[in-house]
């Protein structure tokens, strides 16, 4: 249903281009949930903004296609895209940001969004919003509140409700639980899973938090340095990770089950995306990096059926020797 082919999103900064997204491809079928994982700065949000085509002024889709039901939406005019937004594809923003207008009441903002797309009266719109609020556990009376009067969790629910207004086919959730405390996080995730089941939604969940993705997604793609370095079904990625970065990520998260082990972190820092990079983008931090890795960029190749990895040694025994201790 949604297919992204070799997407490149660059930002114009003083001194050149910042290659935030450098050749990313993935697909999403009806009812699937794709988790997009990576550190902050790896390009995940840019992918989301590019899909909605709301990149900031200095951002540009340099290359690639975004096929939604066979149509390449990168080629659409602004007006055509505007009509498509929210109706076919919508977004859940982080509640921690200033995602809503502070001077208008929340109810009226959602009503405004709905009426921008559907020919309904104000009362009908309010009914719809109230119903959605109810589904997400927001009391009706809160329609009249202002954003600053909402708690973090409730604001996030309101933002989720907003994304559901026009019955979209795809929802992109950008860090929907970051900056919420764990208890609230759990509630929100439950709601998301519930919505997904009840409304048979297709979702792209963006997060730096592996545990969230593990809990909610059927497919996972790991991003690093603007590229996808590994993608597979959720189960496969966690049980048989085939990229040193993925392994590093998994090892840095604690697990309640399983043996007690030391948490490790990945040394080094993310790459400078304004400078040209030779070889594998992860090589500087990779514990099994070889000469070949610094010279030749690995391609994203199939390891096993639907399981892809961007590592020269993904299929070899070397991959099992990844150790960050």
């Amino acid at each position, binding site marked *: 249903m949604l297919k992204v082919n070799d997407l490149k999103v660059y930002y114009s900064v003083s001194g050149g281009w910042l290659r935030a997204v450098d050749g990313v491809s993935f697909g999403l079928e009806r009812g699937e949930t794709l988790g997009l994982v990576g550190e902050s700065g790896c390009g995940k949000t840019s992918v989301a903004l590019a899909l909605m085509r709301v990149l900031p002024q200095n951002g540009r889709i340099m290359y690639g296609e975004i096929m939604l039901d066979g149509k390449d939406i990168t080629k659409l005019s602004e007006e055509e895209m505007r009509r498509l937004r929210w109706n076919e594809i919508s977004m859940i923003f982080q509640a921690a940001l200033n995602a809503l207008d502070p*001077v208008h009441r929340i109810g009226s903002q959602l009503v405004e969004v709905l009426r921008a797309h559907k020919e309904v009266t104000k009362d009908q719109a309010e009914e719809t919003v109230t119903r959605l609020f109810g589904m997400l556990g927001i009391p009706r009376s809160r329609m009249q509140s202002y954003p600053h009067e909402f708690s973090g969790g409730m604001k996030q629910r309101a933002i989720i409700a907003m994304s559901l207004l026009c019955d979209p086919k795809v929802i992109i959730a950008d860090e929907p639980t970051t900056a919420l405390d764990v208890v609230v996080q759990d509630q929100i995730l439950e709601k998301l899973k519930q919505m997904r089941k009840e409304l048979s939604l297709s979702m792209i969940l963006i997060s730096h938090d592996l545990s969230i993705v593990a809990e909610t997604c059927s497919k996972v793609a790991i991003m690093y340095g603007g590229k996808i370095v590994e993608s597979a079904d959720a189960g496969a990625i966690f049980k048989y990770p085939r990229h040193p970065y993925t392994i590093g990520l998994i090892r840095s998260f604690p697990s309640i089950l399983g043996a007690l082990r030391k948490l490790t972190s990945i040394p080094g820092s993310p790459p400078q995306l304004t400078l040209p990079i030779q070889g594998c983008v992860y090589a500087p931090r990779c514990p099994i990096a070889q000469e070949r890795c610094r010279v030749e960029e690995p391609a994203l190749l199939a390891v096993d059926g639907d399981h892809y990895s961007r590592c020269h040694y993904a299929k070899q025994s070397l991959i099992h020797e990844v150790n960050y201790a």
Partner: protein
Amino acid sequence: MYVAKRVLQLVPLMFIIICLNFVLINMAPGDPALALAGAQAGSNQEYLEMLRIKFGLDKPIHERLIIYVSRVVQLDFGYSYFYRRPVFDVIWQHIPATLILMIPSFILAVIVGTLLGAYAAQRRGSRLEAALTTTNVGFYSLPVFWLGILEILVFALILRVLPTGGMIPATETGTEAILDILRHLILPTLALFLTLFPGFYLLARASVIEVMREDFITTFRAAGLKENAILYNHALRNAILPEVTAAGLLFGFLFAGSVLVETVFSWPGMGRLAYQAAMLRDYPLLMGIFIIGSAWFIIANLATDIAYSFLDPRVLYE
């Protein structure tokens, strides 16, 4: 309630202003009676003696303060020796002229400045916008009294199309008077407008640019709202907040800002009165103007805060 709270704050503030005046009188070099009478009355011993009794200058300081404050509160600001009338009357008589001059210029400056600034923010980066902004910084730096004198030089003296100053001759009435006032208003209003509107332009431009960078703008764009709707319903509505604060602040300085323009154009308002009082060292008049100017400022501030609280729901949430 917020409004009540702010209105109550008026009282201590005015009290502080009056006390400040009191301090100034008593710290002045020489005889405080002189400070209360004005330099003109220096030789009139009888008058000075009368003041000494009236204001209890021989009594201890805390009693003097009480006497002074009670007098001021009853609007007894003393007596202007030069005008031979109570200070309050003199001031009151001069207020309308200042209002006629300042209010139209002010309203024009706020409206034109804000609209132009918002327009410029949208065209940001273009050559037109850069030229416009630089020009505005230029006008903003222009001393209003210099501009006024230049206007007089060019339009009144060289070209002879407009009067050099004053408001109206005392004899005119009716429509003739109104037209004459308008004729006399042109140059000073122009000077005021040109030096006031750049501030609003720069502020509006900066606020709109700032607001357009906010996250909720991206939210609404992603939600497929039309660009115009985003601009009017959301961007401007938020950007207007600092404008309201600035406009309120300027409004508070209405009387203070009139001093220079009125002096240059011999406009018979409170500003020129202050100037003349300073020249003549008519202290009671000056102090009265100070108190009234302060009171006006405080009230204008209050009104602005209240208006602002209606526009920004976050204010009451404390």
